[in-house]
């Protein structure tokens, strides 16, 4: 396919001749990971903040489990979601297996513990700092959650980036629940696995370079936004 053995040249050629196949693979990768991270943030931010503020029996256990799940092997997450969504599984009726939605679910499972755990840490630190002030304002714990989340927002952007990194980089889960179907569920990481298995190493590495470049770009944007926000806050 490529005349050159140089991965960087291959990557450059791929970008310059951006064909519709590659474009749809890149778009799908970003869509799936973005939606998964957004949903995980919707659930994980309040969950993390609640864990930071509420004391209840078994709280330490929940924290330990969430921390441990940050290291959940993607292939295990994928297998669980596969068994859940398979026709023979409890949610089989939905017919979601081998669809982008299934990939979102799997990445959600992977990202949620990261966002919830790291949010808890950030919010707890902030709470320790401002506990007296917040209490003097007479805020209930429930009202403190949005306030503290908002105050921690710059740090939380990094938390979400960590989640996005996990989602966009993993391959074990999306391979199992998506099936790497050409034009339907093929994303950057599963393409890299496929090209490697065909022995097309320069193309595989070229795709890897593009993926890395995209993630770098997203991180750079987030960093710029953070810097701007900090400056505005003085």
């Amino acid at each position: 396919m490529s005349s050159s053995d140089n991965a960087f040249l291959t990557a450059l050629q791929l970008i310059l001749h951006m064909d519709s196949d590659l474009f749809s693979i890149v778009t799908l990768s970003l869509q799936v990971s973005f939606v998964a991270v957004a949903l995980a943030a919707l659930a994980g931010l309040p969950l993390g903040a609640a864990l930071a503020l509420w004391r209840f029996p078994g709280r330490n256990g929940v924290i330990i489990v969430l921390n441990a799940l940050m290291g959940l092997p993607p292939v295990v997450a994928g297998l669980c979601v596969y068994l859940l969504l398979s026709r023979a599984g409890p949610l089989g009726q939905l017919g979601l297996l081998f669809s982008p939605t299934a990939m979102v679910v799997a990445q959600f499972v992977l990202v949620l513990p990261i966002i919830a755990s790291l949010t808890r840490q950030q919010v707890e630190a902030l709470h320790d700092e401002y506990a007296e002030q917040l209490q003097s304002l007479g805020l209930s714990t429930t009202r403190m959650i949005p306030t503290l989340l908002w105050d921690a927002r710059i740090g939380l952007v990094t938390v979400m980036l960590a989640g996005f990194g996990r989602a966009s980089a993993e391959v074990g889960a999306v391979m199992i629940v998506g099936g790497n179907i050409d034009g339907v569920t093929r994303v950057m990481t599963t393409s890299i696995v496929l090209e490697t298995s065909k022995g097309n190493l320069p193309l595989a590495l070229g795709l890897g370079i593009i993926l890395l470049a995209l993630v770098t770009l997203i991180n750079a944007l987030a960093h710029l936004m953070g810097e701007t926000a900090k400056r505005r806050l003085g």
Partner: protein
Amino acid sequence: MKKIAVVTSLSLLSLTWGGLALADDDYITLASTTSTENSGLFDAIIPQFTDKTDIDVRVVAVGTGQAFETARRGDADSLLVHDTAGEEQFVADGYATERLDVMYNDFVIVGPSDDPAGISNSDTVNEAFSSIAESESPFASRGDDSGTNRAELRLWEDAGVTPQGEWYRELGSGMGPTLNTAAGMHAYTLTDRATWVAFDNPQDLTLLFEGDDALFNQYGSLLLSAERHPHLKHDLAAQWHEWLVSEEGQQAIADYRLNGQQLFFPNAQ
């Protein structure tokens, strides 16, 4: 400010979600093997089928063992694999109602070009396998219950060898990764010809033995049981099943060439 942020992110989310919703065309999910996908066969024949019937075929390419399991759980509408004994068992178990020969190619033995076991002079595949075992030359086995893996284990049995020891390495990987690893550790391996011809990273690996009748590799299409899994798209899957063995489907398979070589030979009855 907070509200704006929430509204913005929610609308962004729904936009992205809308983008994910797929066109609701007719399609079937086909569980098949990596050899048919990696060699480019499906890219060549599926568009012809789709042109004719407006049915898209979505291929999930896995090992034959996993393909059977996918179909058994009701997650695929159709099955195209290469393990005749396993396919017949699948029909006998009631998961499929019909099995048809579609095409064949053959397995070949590849290995390091200096051929430490001297198999290129072997007359039969039994002799080749015995030489590898006797010289304890490294052999990379798929070890993943795929069609190729099952064929390989039958060949050891035929050669009267129990493959075990330092030299016999079960990788638990697909054909491509196994070829990559075999190239890296100067090992012999059994591969289907299609994957071998399509493989771009042979390094020092070269084709050393071919042509024995025992290396015949038959692919079959299975019509899944409507009784067992009523929710599957049986009508559409039947059209694909019949097209594969039709004159047109057989011609499409015969016409496919990679690097000037025909990789699959239609042989529907």
